[in-house]
Structure formats: C-alpha cells, structure tokens
C-alpha cells in the first residue's frame, strides 16, 4: 500500500528497503516467534533456507523440529500439513514452485479445503501453502505459470497474492493466523525487484479487502500479483494523457471483495482487468461476470481484459511474447475510454 506507514507499535521495528522475499522471511520470523504452533515444512526450507532464501535463518532460530526439510514429495508435504493441522499446529508448507503443486492438489482440494465441513467443524486445516508463481524470470518449463484460478475455483480455501513487500508481510501474517487453509502465491518476478520499508510489528492485513492503490475517476484498473507493478505504471502513463485511473490490487483472490471493485466501477463506469494467467475461465472472467451481473447499466464501455494467452507458457526465449506489458494495459484503457 502506498498509504503512510502505520503508527508504531511498542515492539515494532522498522525494516528498511525490504524486498518481497525479505518481507516473507520477516513475517515467518514474527509468526514463529509469536506462536509455537507455527511450523515450516518443505523441500530445502531448512538448512538451505529455501531455494529463493525465503526461509533463510529460520531453522537456525527455531530448530529443526519446527523448520523441517521434507523428502522430495509434494503430495506428502501437503498431506503431512493436513495431518499436522488437524492436531492444532499451524503449518506453513512450501511448495518450491507452483508448477509442482499438482501432486499436492489432491490434499489441498480434497482434504484441506474440506476437513472443517466434513467434520462439522470438529477438525480444521489452518495451513498456509506457500508457492512462488508466475513468469518473467527466464525459468525452465513448469516454473512460470499463473494457475491461481485452478485454486480459486475450490470451495473452502482462500487464495492470497501479495504484490509488494509490505502487503506480503501483512497478508502472510494474516494467512498464518487464518483458521482457514490459505494458498499464498508469491509473485517471484518481483521477489527482489521491489523494495519498501516494513514495520515489523506483527500486524496483519485484512484477507477480505482489496487494496485501492491509486484513486481515480475515469477508469478502474484491476490487477494482482507481479502485474500490479505494470498496472500502476500504466495508471501513471494515463495520468500524463489526462486520464485519471483507479488501481485496485485484489490481494485476496478468494473470497473476492466484490464491494470494493463494484464501488469503483460504479464510479468510473469503465474497467480493465489485467492478469498474467491465461485469458479464459480465470479470475478476470469472474470479475467481469460479477460486474455484468451487478453493474451492467453503470458500465459506459465493455469490460476489457489484458492477459496472457490460452497457450502453453513459452520457454524463456519467447517468454516475453506471452507476458502482458504496461503498454498493453495503457492501450486497453484508452480503447475503453474511446468507446461510445
């Protein structure tokens, strides 16, 4: 959030120039320090501190009984987290890359998401499944997809995606405290590229509210994850054209804060949704459908989507053709404004 830093709590430390990765690390440190039930598990999360260094120093600080290097088996990681959570632990399970989530999918969809309902609230699964996701870092096959919609479709879980170091810190803390299972997707393209100060005060950010990053009156731009950076850039370029764009970062994909989006679009009458995931059947489509259902006669132009394609993500050489760019968002916004 670009809002001013919160008032300092007694135990708060200001961490200067933190990357998103460092923010994740700080949130994990704080959560583990505050609550013995928070445990970490995953591949390479212990001694190595994670392949991206998100869990660096945690095993040293909290011991290998709370920061556990697992065998290389994703279904196992997710299933073990399910079992732990039914006994009152709050596991944070790392899936090393979103592309390797599929063996774990069964446990997320068939157990974590359903345990509370299945047992009428007797047992529940307060797990955070962390996974780096998204393209733009020239990674090998299976390391670049944005598959959040696959999970947003599942009843019983929450899907959270931060787009800045401060939101990563606050949303991760809230995800860990949440009594519901949360899929926490970390946009790895901005793992190190964005820096901001963080107040390490253990205060979480709400999991039920979108973040309005910039207010505007002519058009609403909705995005999430790494692409929020380009969306904000686009809004500033539009400003130069005399166009006032409001920018909403979803933050929490599911459950969706429809009210914030709706209020903005009622005001502006125009909406561009920008996401890196494939074009069809996604979160963007859900938002467009919601606006069609609830704000059709407030719309002054068709809703536009700026997205990846319904293709397999190309290998690094051609990856850039897939990725939506700032200019694509600017053009979509101008086209939308020129309608009528």
């Amino acid at each position, binding site marked *: 959030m670009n809002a001013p830093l919160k008032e300092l709590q007694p135990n708060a430390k200001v961490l200067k120039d933190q990357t998103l990765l460092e923010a994740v690390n700080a949130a994990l440190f704080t959560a583990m320090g505050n609550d013995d039930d928070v445990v970490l598990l995953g591949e390479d999360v212990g001694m190595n501190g994670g392949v991206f260094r998100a869990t660096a120093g945690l095993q040293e600080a909290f011991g290998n009984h709370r920061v556990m290097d697992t*065998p290389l088996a994703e279904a196992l990681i997710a299933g073990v987290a399910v079992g732990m959570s039914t006994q009152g632990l709050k596991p944070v399970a790392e899936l090393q890359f979103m592309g390797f989530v599929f063996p774990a999918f069964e446990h997320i969809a068939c157990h974590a998401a359903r345990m509370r309902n299945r047992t009428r609230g007797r047992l529940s699964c307060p797990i955070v499944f962390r996974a780096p996701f998204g393209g733009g870092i020239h990674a090998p096959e299976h390391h670049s997809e944005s598959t959040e919609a696959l999970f947003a479709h599942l009843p019983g879980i929450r899907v959270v995606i931060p787009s800045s170091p401060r939101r990563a810190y606050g949303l991760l803390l809230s995800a860990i405290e949440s009594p519901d299972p949360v899929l926490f997707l970390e946009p790895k393209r901005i793992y190190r590229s964005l820096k901001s100060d963080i107040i390490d005060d253990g205060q979480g950010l709400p999991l039920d509210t979108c973040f309005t990053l910039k207010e505007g009156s002519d058009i609403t731009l909705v995005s999430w994850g790494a692409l929020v950076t380009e969306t904000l850039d686009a809004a500033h370029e539009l400003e130069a054209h005399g166009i006032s764009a409001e920018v909403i970062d979803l933050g929490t994909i599911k459950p969706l804060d429809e009210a914030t989006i709706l209020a903005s679009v009622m005001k502006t009458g125009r909406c561009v949704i920008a996401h890196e995931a494939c074009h069809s059947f996604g979160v963007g489509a859900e938002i467009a459908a919601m606006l069609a259902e609830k704000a059709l006669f407030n719309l002054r132009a068709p809703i536009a989507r700026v997205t990846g394609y319904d293709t397999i993500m190309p290998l690094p050489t051609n990856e850039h053709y897939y990725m939506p760019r700032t200019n694509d968002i600017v053009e979509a916004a101008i086209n939308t404004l020129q309608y009528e």
Partner: protein
Amino acid sequence: MYQALKLPLDQCHRFINADGTLKHTIDEQEFPLLLECYKAMMQIRIFDKKCVSLQRTGRFGTYPSVLGMEAIGIGVGKAMEEEDVFVPYYRDQATQMLRGVSLYEILMYWGGDERGADYQNCRQDLPNCVPIATQCTHAAGVASSFKIRKEKRVAVCSLGDGASSKGDFMESLNLAGTWKLPMVFVINNNQWAISVPRHLQSGAERLADKAIGAGMPGEQVDGNDVYAVYRAVKRAVDRARAGKGPALIEAISYRLCDHTTADDASRYRANEELEKAWEFEPVKRLRALLENKGLWNESQELAWAEHCQANTDKAVELFLNTEAQPPHAMFDHLYAELPTQLEEQYATLLARHHA
C-alpha cells in the same frame, strides 16, 4: 487349505488356528481380553449386516461392509490407547467403534449426513478418508505433531491392499522411516481392491516387505486371528510410543462381502474361492477357542447376540428419526466464518428452499 486360496497365511504370524485350536500358547491372563474382542466382533458383525440390509431397502447410502475383516479392526482398536489418534480409510467401522465412535454416528455418516463425522468421543481421530491412501500422509502429519510437541502418542493408519500401490502410501512410509515417526501402518489385505486381486496389485511377495525400503520393520499377521493382530499392533504401538520409530503390519484376511453395496463381486470372483474363505473367517474360530476353554457357551452366545441386535436397533431407530440438517448446513462449516462473497448465495439457497 490356505494354498487353495493362495493366501500366504501359513507363513504369517498366528496364535489361533482356523479351527479354534492354538498354534502358540496364549497367556491365561489374556483371555478376558479375548472375550472382549469376541463380543466386539459380534457387535460389529450384527451391526454391519443391518447396514447392508438398510441399503438394500433404500434407507441407506452406499456402504462398505467389513464382513470377514472384523478381527483386524477389533485387534487394532484394542491395541491403541485413548490418547492415540486413529487415521482410518473407509472400512474401519470396527476400530472406530472401539475408539468411541457410536453406532449412531457410523449410521449417520453412511446414511449421508456429515454429522456422522463429528465424533462426540475420540475428538482428534480423523474422519473416514475416501481418496485412496491419502490418509497415510495425514497420519504422518499427525505423528509429526506428536513428535514436535514431544507427546508420547501414536498415530495408527489403516489402508487396504489396493492402497499399498499408491504414491501417498509409499511417500508416507518413506517419511515415517526417515523421521522415525511414532506411527503404525496397518494394511487390511483382504485380497481384493474392488475387482483387482492381490497378485495384480504388486509383484512383491509380501506387502509387509515394502517396509524394508523405508527402513522400518514390516510384519505379516493372520488378519483373521484377532489376538495375532492385537499382539502385532500392540507391539508396534508400544515401540512407536517409546520413540523407536514406525512399523508396518500386513494383516491378511479376506473380503467375504462385495466391495460395497454398489458392487457385485460374483461378476469377477469365483464362488468356490469365497466358500473356501469362509472356513478361515475370524469370528467362528474365536468362538471355538472360547468354548473349548469354557469361557463361552450357546446361551451366552444367544444372549449377547440379542444384546448386540438391541444396540443396533436402537441406533438405527435414532438414525431413522434424525431430521436432516437444514439446507444452509453446506455453508455453515465451509470457512470459520461465512465470507461476505458467499452471503448472496446463502440468501439464494434460503429463498429457493424457503428455509
């Protein structure tokens, strides 16, 4: 005899032979336990029969009978302590009954109501698990939580022979061995995974040998001998509780019933094999032993059967007279609190059903 069925029962551990004679001596002090086991096995057999008939008369959902496998469930249940956690698959009514799950709750679950998994006793036991072998990883997580909190408790996980082919089982076995988890895996090897016979499930001669690759002991027992099951599981549970790591037990039995009430095993299974398998069933041999020892007789048998039937009928009556949950029950435990986004759908449901 066993060879005709191609069951490796002669090589596995057994105390009570199929005719009720003893292969190995059982300490006199254990006979009260055997009597309790017998009574519990009768209770579950009578209850199980009623469940099948409820389904046949359209008052019940699809139901997986435990006919022929009562000794495994009861042996496992007797070997566990109250503070342990049982992680079942979906054919574990016998163990669940000993854990404190009521017959009414079992009826509610298989009768199609989620409240049947809200066990009023054994609150930490996991509910039935339908996706095959996935419960093994959950059990490993439960055992991990005991280890992390330095609690002297044990997770006991149950699975079928078909489940031993799945990655989730192998991954859990591997983790349990690596982390020396306080857990016990019990394979109910009833020879059939729906229509697929044991020999098409694995090239391994003994499923128990899968333990070797995971660095833990594996043992075959006669799953139709309740005392053999009890002893093996008890030893494994005690060992796990003492911090000496996990174990795998393959209890060899035979599914005397269809896979579930939705199955017809006569389509793929020879009747001669089924008839032969009845010779080894677990209830009859224990009764013979107890009668030989003068601990049981015909009149006790009749009185206890009547008692079990009365328990069953009482639970069935309560089940049949329980009102369904309201329509909005599907929303009530989806999240800890109903998210705002779902309020509209909730209202739609209420409007559609005038609730």
